[in-house]
């Protein structure tokens, strides 16, 4: 069956393949015109000059500071340290501190992938020093804390096995000690925890389009109860790294987002108000004036502890009926953020999501909502003009008044954002030809970012 799928994909790609005689010669010739590569990357040259000056002025201490601040970055040596390309995940920021997971599968020098343990790190000083808190196996999937930051969970899904089993690690002392629960007997396509209370959307790899059982725990995964089913088999379209599709505001109200374009009977957003027992396709929002006939994609509700919530919504037009439900074919004309004061049951007051003339779009689009007022988006300036940041430049935009006014800052290639308050936040970015993950820290609301070294 897979052979047939592979054959079809090859056939499809071949059907659109257009031979390009002579391309190899042209490419090679172009490379020949290029001067010999520098021993140092351009940015390394300038930073090295700074570093040397600093070394002269402050012989030992200055150099150490530069290294720690990552102002000096030399080409990777051929030694063991260059052998791996660690992947990072922003895990949590808030009452339990700042947490990062260094994911455990690295590319080995000669053996392809080398399975190593994931490592959970905590920092209490903005990333200057890190303390290892847990080593664990499996695919890291998420982390959550109770409001006091004492009780928490971290969970993994075994993506490498057919089981898709969920393993929960629980702590009751702020992460100093962890208890590993036995992997679940049921699969976990999506899992969500609010501290020690959790839910699982349990669609098995072989379940096809059967309704998915919903499992619930109130004791950090020690025991599970099947509470209902959800028949939303069109799920699959995610909006960005770190975004959830399955979330509960409290013990009763939860959401599941498919990501599809809204259609009669299926808005793309499912809601439960009885803790996951029953689910209904939630009705769509009232569009702003002028967009009454637009196609709609409902984003993911972001629920705050005070009962308020925001809901990003994209409006646009799908011109080809073949792709009527496909979010990738929506030509977006405007993005809005709706607000809710009742935990997401009703949505009003659409605010246009536009920063300095820029609307977030494309695969680099990422957003973070701290509360009703403080929002961040990151995207790339696709405008033909270099305003407010150069064309093609990624940016971070911040609002402190619920989207009425914005500040726009040029930024690295950020793929995940997380803020603990209006000023302090973290970002995961990619850098270099290997898409190396780097961790960034801001203390001024996203205007400036500094790399933080994870052990």
């Amino acid at each position, binding site marked *: 069956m*897979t052979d047939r799928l592979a054959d*079809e994909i090859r056939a499809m790609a071949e059907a*659109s393949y257009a031979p390009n005689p002579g*391309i190899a010669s042209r490419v*090679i010739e172009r490379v020949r015109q290029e001067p010999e*590569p520098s021993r140092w990357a351009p940015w390394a040259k300038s930073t090295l000059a700074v570093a040397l000056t600093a070394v002269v002025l402050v012989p030992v201490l200055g150099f150490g500071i530069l290294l720690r601040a990552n102002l000096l970055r030399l080409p990777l040596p*051929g030694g063991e340290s260059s052998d791996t390309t660690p992947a990072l995940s922003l895990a949590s920021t808030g009452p339990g501190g700042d947490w990062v997971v260094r994911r455990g599968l690295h590319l080995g020098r000669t053996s392809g992938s080398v399975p190593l343990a994931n490592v959970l790190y905590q920092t209490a000083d903005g990333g200057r020093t890190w303390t290892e808190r847990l080593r664990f196996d499996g695919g890291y999937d998420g982390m959550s804390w109770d409001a006091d930051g004492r009780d928490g969970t971290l969970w993994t899904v075994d*993506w490498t096995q057919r089981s898709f089993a969920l393993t929960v690690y629980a702590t009751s002392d702020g992460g100093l000690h962890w208890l590993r629960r036995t992997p679940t007997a049921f699969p976990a396509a999506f899992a969500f925890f609010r501290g020690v209370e959790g839910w699982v959307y349990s669609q098995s790899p072989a379940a096809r389009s059967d309704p998915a059982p919903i499992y619930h725990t109130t004791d950090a995964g020690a025991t599970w109860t099947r509470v209902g089913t959800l028949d939303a088999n069109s799920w699959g379209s995610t909006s960005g790294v770190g975004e959830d599709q399955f979330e509960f505001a409290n013990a009763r109200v939860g959401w599941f987002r498919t990501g599809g374009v809204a259609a009669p009977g299926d808005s793309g957003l499912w809601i439960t108000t009885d803790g996951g027992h029953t689910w209904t396709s939630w009705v769509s929002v009232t569009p702003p004036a002028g967009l009454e006939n637009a196609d709609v994609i409902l984003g993911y509700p972001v629920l705050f502890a005070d009962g308020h919530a925001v809901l990003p919504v994209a409006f646009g037009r799908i011109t080809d009926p073949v792709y009527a439900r496909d979010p990738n074919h929506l030509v977006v004309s405007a993005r809005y953020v709706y607000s809710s004061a009742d935990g997401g049951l009703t949505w009003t007051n659409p605010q246009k999501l536009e920063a300095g003339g820029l609307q977030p779009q494309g695969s680099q689009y990422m957003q973070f909502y701290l509360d009703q007022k403080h929002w961040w988006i990151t995207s790339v300036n696709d405008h033909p003009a270099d305003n407010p940041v150069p064309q*093609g430049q990624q940016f971070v935009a911040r609002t402190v008044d619920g989207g009425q006014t914005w500040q726009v800052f040029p930024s690295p290639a950020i793929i995940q954002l997380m803020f603990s308050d209006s000023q302090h936040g973290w970002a995961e970015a990619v850098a270099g030809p290997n*898409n190396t993950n780097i961790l960034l820290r801001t203390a001024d609301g996203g205007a400036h970012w500094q790399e933080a070294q994870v052990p």
Partner: protein
Amino acid sequence: MQRPRQLARMNEQAMTLELISAARRGDRDAFEALLRPLIDPAYRLALAMLSDRTAAEDAVQESALKAWRAVRRLRPDPESFRPWLLAIVANQCRDTRRRRWWTVLKFADLHPPDDPTTDPSGLVDLRQAIAQLPANDRLVLYLFFYLDLPLPEVAATLGISTAATKARLYRITRRLRPGLEISEVYQ
């Protein structure tokens, strides 16, 4: 005792490692020897991502230059060059797509024939399904099924772990073929 095929592979790896070491020292001939066999897969990947022959060649050319400029930072690993170069190509294609966003929304001109029932192979359905995938998901499919890259190389190209690649590949193929068993995807 080593089998002939294993020995041949070891020799090939040793030779590749030699070329990489030389290229890292700035040896242009060594770099060209590494680059030449990968130009076609790089172009196929770029064409699949951009659906535009000229843009695809531009992307490959720019990627080759970037690779040459950065070759000293290449890991001395015989299996590192292909995913490294294809990652540069994929990034270059993403940059190109960002600059012509509205064109990309009309991805690939994969319109079905007037009468889909005349296509008994189901290929039209698959085309539509693939066309509806996010661009990064299509990239995974092309790398794995079209370019036949092993999973660790797909992972290296994407800059994510092998496990994450596996999970992503499984989810995508399952969406395309809901009845697929996970073991069937990686066999």
